[in-house]
């Protein structure tokens, strides 16, 4: 009798714990679902802690004084605006320096919180109802998910459209427009940008060796061959980046795509309408392989491309004598260069030359978009402030960032190297955003990275790699 009693109790306990587990897991699944892009197509806005901006609000905000004017008049003194983003350390110091003036003028306290785990944490916070007032997204694709589920405030509802049009290149505004639960919304504003179509070279040694900056792709290949004959591999390439290994390769493909096909095809490709298995994409990969898979052209040969960290790759250019001479990477790479080097003297960049003259001078960019999760007047004011070049003025002066706003003055850039980048982006015939950041995570931050890594390391051939990448769209 006693024994059966005991057993039944244990069974009861097991059932109890099991229900607990199932309940807990169930909740977790829901949370995961709302994060994944494929599941969030449901147009009904999910429960959101933030009051979503209704269209009726847009009228009164546009007509009267803007929130920014109110803020500068001191109306929001003593309020707090929380901000969450991926940049930490030196970037955080520069950011805080840039907003200090605004904070003392308006009395609004902008509390910035930086985390290396931004991408993972922001989803948890938004789902947990703990969204920051403003979040800084380095990948618009991720923001797109939140826009779709109706958790992001439409900034067009209170900002002056004409002002935005005057201060941003149209491509930027187009890229900020995303699908909301009911129609398109402007999901955020571009606050910082970086230019990607750059080839870095050790200027001093480069000039001493008598090399000339190439103006066309053919000239660049001739230079590569010349350097190889002289005894060095021309290119320093590394794509290792922990779990993100492979992303520098995707930048190459995007840059070459812009140079070998029309911008329309590029857009189709980014949206998934032009498959990776198409000859246009394959052609771009082949073009890249001419450099990457030639052991005389790449430092360490192709086997070291996959194992070299992207940040360590350019360092061999600054050995004496240089072990490699060219390195294609975005503007941020200078923070990985040895610290005693002078920009414009020891190193410089040239524009990755066009391949086919009919596509003009396309430029690949990336950037950070600030999105708003809670609609309060002081948050509006801060968002408006971020649309002005003034908001990153000191950051521009200390280097490492290019302003997407038109009212940022060229003389703010303290080095010629960065001023030329800003000009390059301004004068580009085609400006396109980093494609892999726009694609859904399963491709842009998944199979695209992995497929390129597999292709370069030689475990699959070109057709196999393209099929592998394309499979990410079906996930």
């Amino acid at each position, binding site marked *: 009798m006693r024994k059966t009693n005991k057993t039944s109790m244990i069974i009861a306990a097991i059932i109890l*714990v099991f229900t607990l587990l199932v309940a807990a897991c169930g909740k977790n699944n829901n949370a995961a679902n709302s994060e994944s892009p494929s599941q969030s197509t449901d147009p009904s806005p999910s429960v959101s802690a933030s009051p979503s901006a209704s269209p009726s609000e847009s009228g009164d905000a546009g007509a009267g004084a803007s929130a920014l004017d109110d803020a500068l008049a001191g109306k929001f003194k003593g309020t707090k605006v929380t901000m969450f983003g991926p940049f930490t*350390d030196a970037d955080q110091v520069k950011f805080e*320096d840039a907003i200090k003036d605004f904070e003392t003028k308006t009395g609004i306290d902008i509390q910035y919180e930086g*985390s*290396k785990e931004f991408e993972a944490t922001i989803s948890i916070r938004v789902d947990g109802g*703990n969204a920051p007032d403003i979040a800084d997204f380095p990948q618009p694709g991720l923001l797109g998910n939140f826009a779709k589920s109706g958790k992001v405030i439409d900034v067009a509802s209170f900002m002056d459209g004409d002002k935005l049009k005057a201060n941003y290149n149209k491509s930027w505004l187009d890229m900020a427009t995303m699908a909301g639960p009911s129609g398109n919304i402007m999901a955020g504003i571009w606050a910082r940008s970086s230019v990607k179509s750059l080839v870095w070279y050790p200027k001093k040694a480069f000039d001493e060796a008598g090399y000339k900056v190439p103006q066309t792709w053919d000239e660049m290949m001739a230079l590569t061959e010349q350097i190889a004959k002289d005894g060095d591999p021309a290119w320093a390439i590394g794509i290792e980046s922990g779990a993100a290994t492979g992303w520098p390769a995707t930048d190459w493909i995007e840059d070459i795509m812009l140079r070998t096909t029309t911008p329309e095809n590029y857009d189709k490709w980014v949206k998934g309408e032009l498959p990776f298995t198409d000859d246009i994409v394959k052609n771009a990969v082949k073009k890249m392989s001419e450099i990457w898979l030639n052991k005389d052209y790449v430092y360490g040969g192709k086997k070291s491309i996959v194992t070299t960290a992207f940040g360590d790759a350019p360092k061999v250019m600054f050995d004496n004598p240089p072990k490699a001479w060219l390195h294609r990477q975005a503007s941020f790479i200078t923070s*990985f260069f040895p610290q005693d080097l002078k920009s414009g003297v020891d190193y410089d960049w040239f524009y990755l030359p066009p391949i086919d003259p009919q596509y003009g001078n396309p430029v690949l960019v990336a950037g950070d978009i600030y999105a708003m999760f809670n609609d309060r007047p002081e948050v509006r004011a801060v968002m408006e402030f971020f649309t002005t070049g003034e908001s990153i003025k000191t950051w521009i002066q*200390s280097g490492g960032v290019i302003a997407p706003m038109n009212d940022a003055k060229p003389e703010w850039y303290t080095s010629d190297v960065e001023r030329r980048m800003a000009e390059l982006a301004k004068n580009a015939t085609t400006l396109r955003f980093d494609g892999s950041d726009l694609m859904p995570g399963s491709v842009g931050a998944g199979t695209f990275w992995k497929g390129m890594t597999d292709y370069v390391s030689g475990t699959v051939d070109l057709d196999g790699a393209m099929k592998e990448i394309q499979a990410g769209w079906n996930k």
Partner: protein
Amino acid sequence: MRRKSRRTGSKTVVNLVLALICLVWLVPAFGLFVSSFRPATEILKSGWWTVFPHKENVTKDQIQLPKDTDLRQPIEVNGNKYSDDELRSGVKAPDGSRLIWENRRARTIDVQGSGWKMNTTFTIENYKGVLTGKQYKITDSDGTVKTKKGNGLSRAFLNTLTVSIPATLIPILIATFAAYAFAWLRFPFRKTMFVTVIMLLVVPLQVAMIPILKDYTSLGLNGTFLGVWIAHAGFGLPLATYFMYSYISQLPKDLFESAFMDGASNFTIFTRLILPLAVPSIASISIFQFLWVWNDYLVSLVFIGSQPNVQVLSMKIADMVGTRGNDWHLLTAAAFISMLMPLAVFFGLQKYFVRGLMGGSVKG
């Protein structure tokens, strides 16, 4: 006699095996320690073991080839022909020396023989950067450059202590109460409740994160120390309860009976008898819980965040490498600094640790 010698013999074997295991476990930590004193450029060039004397190919002589040597044809060096690939990876010449490119551009070849070498470039810059914070150069609007100092680890170190100590004491205190009740008090559903607590051991804490975060948001506990104390206490309770139960339930029954006879209440028994007797056990579970909380990243990431006034060490260290990981070389030094506290706790409580591990294993 014979038996004794056999015993010492087997003891030596056991000691040898243990020493070997210790060595295997220590090598990575030691490598990290050596690396923490090496400059970043050196770490990229050579492994940490090269700080010890080792045999390496040492250049004895150099050969200058004609500048117009075609690198894609077999290359003639001292009358022998080699391919470019051979010269890149090093090739044995007939006289036993090794030929390798010194500079392909200048067409110079090193003639190497083997010799002893050690790398002795050390620096304390890594520790300086970690402890006092990095220097940032910021250009002012008028063009002057000012140096700004970043935050060091000290604030995060204190924050981590603020999190760890209560997050260790709270669950262990509750667990000890609970263990006493489960072991010696009679109340309905005692067994069921105990089994439930034990079963919670298998529930991964990750599944509870978002629901708890939602509750915290409505209670306003996010980003506060109180919130993370409660979270750690909750996650740590099942193991601590089970651990304390196994020890307390093995205490001799007569002890409690006689205490009862003398009129002691449950509380008196707990404070006067259980707590002093359970010290070894409490100490060892404290080590476990403290180490877990100290090294925790996930719970702090979700419930505290990285505002500088509450940010804990593990997150600060991760942030220290910079937005794009450009300062990875600081990790080695930071890891060692964060290890200091757990080491101190471990060695301080170590003598209880061994006793505590055996707690409950032998009756009586």
